């Protein structure tokens, strides 16, 4: 007769205390680090918040596994020379339902929170500025459609605290746009226009990193990102005389925009 949840035969209270203690220690240690680096966009704190939730949940799950394994190894080790079998326990339906249902609730919670976060970080403010991102092996360049397609090679300037819609194009293979401090990443795909929205919240100089393998020059495909005040940005962009060259304009006009964003726009259609 399998005992109900084994509770009468196991020090459940002590094991639970060990799980809580271990999970608390692990969470405390891991939460004390700023894993993702500086938070320099409106999306960054939201994504880091999600990471912190996951750190706590992961610590609990990990602590359950480690404590369960550790206790079993202490309590149920065979004595030297003991060749007898363990008890013929084949399962326990209540326990099995429990470890099916509880993880389901946890992951659905994670999914729901992620969905909410996703909607928040992709929400449009209605006061956006569009920037075209052009990528090719192994260089970045940028166009400013609001400023008669002013063109900048290798350096991206954007104003602080203004939502930027990046329309991304690739001329050859797939590249990917990532500024770690902004947390947002997306592939630049030849033939289609992909879109991300980012609101930088700190001025300064950052690095734009290509994260999709694009050939032998992949690890050196970088660009400088300068976030500055709206005034300084306007001064810079108005000083540009160069326009986006024709071959790049072709991809702006002809690439299909197959990926409407954010989610609300899909519902509207």
């Amino acid at each position, binding site marked *: 007769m399998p005992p109900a949840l*084994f509770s009468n035969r*196991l020090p459940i209270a002590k094991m639970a205390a060990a799980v809580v203690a271990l999970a608390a220690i692990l969470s405390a240690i891991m939460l004390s680090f700023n*894993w*993702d680096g500086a938070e320099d966009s409106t999306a960054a704190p*939201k*994504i880091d918040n*999600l*990471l912190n939730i*996951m750190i706590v949940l*992961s610590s609990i*799950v*990990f602590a359950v*596994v*480690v404590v369960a*394994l550790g206790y*079993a*190894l202490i309590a*149920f080790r065979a004595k030297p020379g003991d060749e*007898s*079998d*363990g*008890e*013929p*326990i*084949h*399962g*326990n339906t209540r326990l099995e339902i429990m*470890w*099916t249902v509880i*993880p*389901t609730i946890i*992951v*659905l919670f*994670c*999914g729901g929170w*992620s*969905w909410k976060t*996703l909607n928040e*970080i992709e929400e449009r403010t209605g006061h956006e500025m569009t920037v075209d991102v052009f990528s090719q092996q192994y260089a970045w360049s940028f166009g400013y459609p609001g400023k008669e397609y002013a063109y900048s090679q290798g350096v991206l300037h954007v104003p602080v605290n203004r939502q930027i819609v990046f329309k991304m194009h690739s001329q*050859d*293979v*797939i590249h990917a746009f990532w500024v*770690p401090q902004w947390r*947002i*990443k997306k*592939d*630049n795909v*030849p*033939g*289609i226009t992909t879109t991300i929205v980012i609101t930088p919240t700190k001025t300064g100089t950052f690095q734009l990193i*290509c994260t*999709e393998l694009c*050939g*032998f*020059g*992949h*690890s*050196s495909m970088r660009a400088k990102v300068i976030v500055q005040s709206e005034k300084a940005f306007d001064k810079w962009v108005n000083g540009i005389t160069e326009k986006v060259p024709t071959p790049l304009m072709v991809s702006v006009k002809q690439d299909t925009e197959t990926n409407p964003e*954010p*989610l609300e726009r899909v519902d509207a259609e």
Partner: protein
Amino acid sequence: MVASFTRPGWYRAALCTVAAAAFGFGLVVLLRSISGLSAFQSEQTGYPQVIVPLITAPLGFLAGIGCFDYWIRWGFGLPTIPDDHSSHGAHTWKDYFKVNTDHKVIGIQYIVTSFIFFLIGGMMAMLIRAELAQPGTQIVSAGTFNSLFSTHAVLMIFVFIIPMFAGIANYVLPLMIGAPDMAFPRLNALSYWMLPMAGIVFLASFLAPGGAFDAGWTGYAPLSTGAPLGQSFFNVGVQLAGFSSIFTALNFLVTIITMRAPGMTFWRMPLLVWANLSTSLLVVAATPFISGVQFMVLFDRLMHTNFFQFGAGGDVISYQHIFWFYSHPAVYIMILPGFGIISEVISVHSRKPIFGYRLMALALIGIVVLSYSVWAHHMFVAGMFSWLRVPMMFTTLLIAVPTGIKIFSWLGTLYFGKIHTKSTAMLFALAMIVTFSVGGISGVMLGMVPFDIHVSQTYFIVAHIHFVLFGGSVFTIFAGLYHWFPKMTGRMYDEKLGRVHFWGTLIGTWGTFIPMHWVGMDGMPRRVADYAAQFGNWNLLISCFAFMLGAIQLVFVYNMIVSWRFGPKAPANPWSGKSIEWLVSSPPPIFNFDEIPRVVGGPYEYGIPGARHAIMSGGGAEVPAPAHTTVGS
């Protein structure tokens, strides 16, 4: 001398390989000349005069070594040579170099061959870590670096992990279900011989102009469609590895469904058999997708079919959808057989029935079904239709549930058992529970779209994939190899060396792959030969642990070779297991069973006095078996 060229064997194989290559080469040159084209075409994506022989030569080799002899004679209505079973069983080491239809020989052929590829792939990993030990490029150029990590991944996935599991199951599974062999022994031999062909084709790409394929193991278009000749070697090699695994999966399915010993109902099958049933269902349905998509890339390269050519009607992102429709189920192809191994090892060494046997089997089937609905979680930042991200996120998170059931059931199995940790197999199994949990947790994190947007394509991904594939699959492979080594070789291995190997591997795995999470979240992208100086110290530490992890594998190699040759003789049942493979001698007789066993109970009847899983008249007939023992309830 002439006779040695007409009989199946290495002479005829060499002859047929050369002849088939010459035929392929001649055909291309002839057809191109007739069409008024230049005989040789050397655009970097072209080279039909190389690609066609690359396809015909392995087929020639397979014909020459003797994989098709029986079928060809039968097909042409010639008198087939009566099967005298001379090709069954191995009497000397030389028999392992011949086409052999014995599943035990094929199992060992598989295991040894794929382990050799593991060592080659591992040496590439060492080179990669040497290059990454410091920022800047020191040892290899950026282009060679791309080739190295691409071939490293391809060797490990296609010619190590997947066939290694096929090899272990090939040996153990027919014994476990009480079958004398696999359902299609000749097909089984053909499956095996395609494996070294695939590995050689992958490695031969280093000889191609422009170097080995360098678009990653994922080979995303259009980087792959425009890459130098080496990429075509990848396209062709995947076909060989893919057909090999499809044939094996068919073989397992038919074997499991039709050849179980009398009395072995589905609910009396050991979980290793359930695991291989699930894996085979995945392989037969999913592998044709990668085969197809690599043909499409090859056709794009050779014939300008423009499947993935933007601006010519092709669609770049569709490559990723088709690729991941195979390659996500493939990660379960690379772990489910391991789950089966862990279930066997933990049950035997804790002297306990598997906790929740039926739910364990259903969890496997649940993973099979769900794994077809999660592929686009690899594409959250790929620029695909954005709404698709949310349903794919939920299915991805839900697949953690059946995986969690497996972890908790293994832990439950340990309770009130008698845990023996003297076997290295058990150490690897216990460590795998913790290490794989870490990989599973980081997998759930990656399933959450906003976090994935940040860490996708960074070292966090490298850390995750190595925790599940090394800390998961490779640990289960070691557990399985240690567990069945006495059965396969008839010798015991050295537990002391096993322990050294275990602790070195465990520390090496955590030391190498845990810091990769950190540098990834902090901004280090993956697949880079050079990186920002701020990550230098962590990478040096990672490399040191990686070298230790690599070096410690030599202990395993030494242990296996020396024990195989000189180890003490193994008894039939060194671990006191209950499943059928432990009822026969070590190694088993040529057709496994002098008498087919009768299955009378569940596979894990530990602790029930007098309960048996199976009986054979040889030893167990006089012990009365209980008519019905409880299974999994």
